[in-house]
């Protein structure tokens, strides 16, 4: 106990606040069991994982209050970077962590306090799902998941005792298609620019993600070979955007979408038959009784992942509560909830207890459903005999080509993106 105590005090003194409370509560770990009910942790993050059901369950299982604020990812980044006192727990994506960590607003987590640390999916620790896997391009979680010691501002290349984020939700994204309107197998990202789908394709108008989908397409077409799709050179950006401007001028795209609902409507109405899409949007189209497939492609997936980070201001009983929360988060209930939405959780095995054999088989193992598959809100998503698009966890997460990232040339890329939209 003495080592963390010293470092908390030092941090507190540096901040000039709450020094004595940190020291006093830490030395008396027995008291907090009663006091923890009065603790309120303020969590903010993107809408995708700020689930009210989680807050309700936290109150039930752990006794303390979790306040959640949902923001868009730009605001999340800004808040994590500029307003450290406004939150206790930041639910951010890994690429945001890369940008925000150097500000010192987050504190590293002691992995010895995380009971299931050894069970966390290797994607987030070594970066290799299987020993022979290669770490994907972009901001792979393993590359920003650890620091050498608690106060370190730079990421450690290997697994250490100090973790930056505890992974919460992640998934592998690909193109969504309307198999009934296309009528032939789709196997490559290059199909997005296939003239066959002229006026019936779409891509998302969120530059940081859109550029990666573009890169997957250009690479699949054999036009460009990227050193790192997550961190392109200005030359690579120019070439990528030029290819897409040409396609846009030729009338390849029906529309671009910015919000989840728009992507659902474009697909459901048949305006678009192939487009970049997110997993829950596919579910939404399917639940309208329309055929829609989250098509696995031979070049692999573009993946994203988020995690919980602790504010540097957390200390004493709040910090203990935060560890308690994190341990609970990966202990299974949340995982089961997320998996039923088509996402994955950090420690997949623990979710098994909270899902029935049919659900586990369908969502995780890629087996044919033995009965109806329903979402957490009760909508029917699949019937007996159906298979999950892309198959099992290892089939999908083992084929990640690239992680969402923010580039060094981000500002340049955004300007080129505006050119693409205005072209």
């Amino acid at each position, binding site marked *: 106990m003495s080592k963390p105590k010293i470092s908390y005090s030092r941090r507190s003194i540096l901040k000039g606040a709450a020094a004595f409370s940190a020291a006093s509560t830490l030395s008396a770990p027995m008291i907090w069991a009663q006091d923890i009910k009065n603790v309120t942790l303020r969590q903010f993050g993107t809408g995708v994982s700020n689930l009210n059901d989680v807050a309700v369950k936290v109150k039930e299982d752990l006794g303390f209050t979790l306040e959640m604020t949902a923001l868009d990812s730009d605001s999340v980044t800004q808040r994590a*970077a500029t307003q450290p006192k406004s939150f206790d727990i930041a639910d951010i994506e890994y690429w945001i962590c890369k940008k925000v960590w150097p500000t010192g607003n987050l504190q590293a987590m002691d992995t010895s306090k995380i009971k299931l640390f050894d069970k966390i999916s290797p994607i987030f620790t070594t970066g290799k799902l299987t020993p022979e896997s290669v770490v994907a391009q972009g901001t792979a979680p393993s590359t920003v998941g650890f620091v050498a010691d608690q106060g370190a501002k730079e990421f450690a290349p290997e697994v250490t005792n100090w973790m930056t984020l505890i992974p919460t939700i992640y998934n592998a994204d690909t193109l969504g298609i309307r198999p009934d309107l296309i009528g032939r197998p789709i196997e490559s990202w290059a199909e997005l620019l296939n003239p066959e789908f002229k006026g019936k394709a779409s891509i998302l108008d969120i530059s940081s993600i859109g550029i990666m989908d573009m890169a997957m397409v250009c690479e699949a077409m054999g036009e460009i070979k990227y050193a790192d799709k997550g961190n392109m050179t200005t030359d690579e950006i120019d070439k990528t955007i030029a290819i897409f401007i040409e396609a846009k001028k030729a009338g390849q795209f029906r529309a671009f979408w*910015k919000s989840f609902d728009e992507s659902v409507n474009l697909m459901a109405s048949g305006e678009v038959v192939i487009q970049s899409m997110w997993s829950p949007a596919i579910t939404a189209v399917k639940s309208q009784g329309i055929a829609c497939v989250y098509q696995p492609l031979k070049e692999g997936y573009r993946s994203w992942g988020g995690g919980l980070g602790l504010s540097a201001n957390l200390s004493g009983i709040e910090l203990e509560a935060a560890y308690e929360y994190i341990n609970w988060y990966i202990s299974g209930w949340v995982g089961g909830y997320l998996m039923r939405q088509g996402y994955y959780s950090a420690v997949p095995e623990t979710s098994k207890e909270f899902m029935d054999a049919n659900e586990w088989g369908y969502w995780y193992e890629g087996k044919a459903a033995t009965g109806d598959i329903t979402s957490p809100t009760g909508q029917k998503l699949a019937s007996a005999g159906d298979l999950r698009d892309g198959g099992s966890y290892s089939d999908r997460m083992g084929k990640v080509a690239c992680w969402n990232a923010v580039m060094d040339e981000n500002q340049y890329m955004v300007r080129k993106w505006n050119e693409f*939209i205005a072209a």
Partner: protein
Amino acid sequence: MAMPRSNTATGWLLAAPLTLVLAAFLVLPIVMIVIVSFWGATEFSIYPAFEFDNYRYLFGSSVAWQVFGTTFRYAFVTWALTLGIGFTVAYFLAFHVRTLTWQITLALICTVPFWTSNIIRMISWIPFLGRNGIANSTLLSMGVIDQPLEWLLFSDFSVLLTFVHINTFFMIVPILNTLLRIDKSLIEAARDAGATGPQILWNVILPLAKPGIMIGTIFVLTLVMGDFITVRFMSGSQSANVGRLISNDVGLLQYPSAAATSVVLLCTVLIVVAGLLRLVDIRKEL
């Protein structure tokens, strides 16, 4: 000496509330925008500075010129169409509808679309114009076309259609107002003097309707030039006007760049309006 002084004081006091409200909620924010337009930005924060980078980028980039061009094109076409439709409707209401009751009733019917929000009226065009939408399926079943018309939706056509739909009313009201004030005896005199219908329209009614046309023009131009949401929804994000440029910058936390674009847009609109006001002295004619 006492009288004028207290008069001055009363005058100042009477003007004060409006002045303060305008200063706090109009002048101050604009001044702030102008100041921020010279600041610099990193990816997460903005920092005070006095640099011309934002403006230099704006004037140096072909995208900005292109986008301003698109904005003017939308504004001009919308203006021409709303003027044509608005004037016709107002003319009909003013000269062909005889009773005041009917004039008021019909004018109120023109406001019915305003009972729902702008955005809802806009979005309701999407299922109507879509590939499998009502327009295309009707035309297909009538045998007018054998392929769905792709250009109906997510095109300049749909953007302009929506602009005209939403903004024509702002043209109707001021024109109707001026037309109703025209002394009917002037028209009778013109007819007695042997003028034909088109001559009366061109030489009598149109000159007298100028202030109304001008006010309507100012409404329509400023609304269209400042819009971003119509262009985003109706073009399927495929074309950009200045408003979208600004909203993109705000989304990416590039406030200084957004402020600079706003300042340029504001100046452009002010210049256009000032030019229009030179053509017609609204105050004199009202």
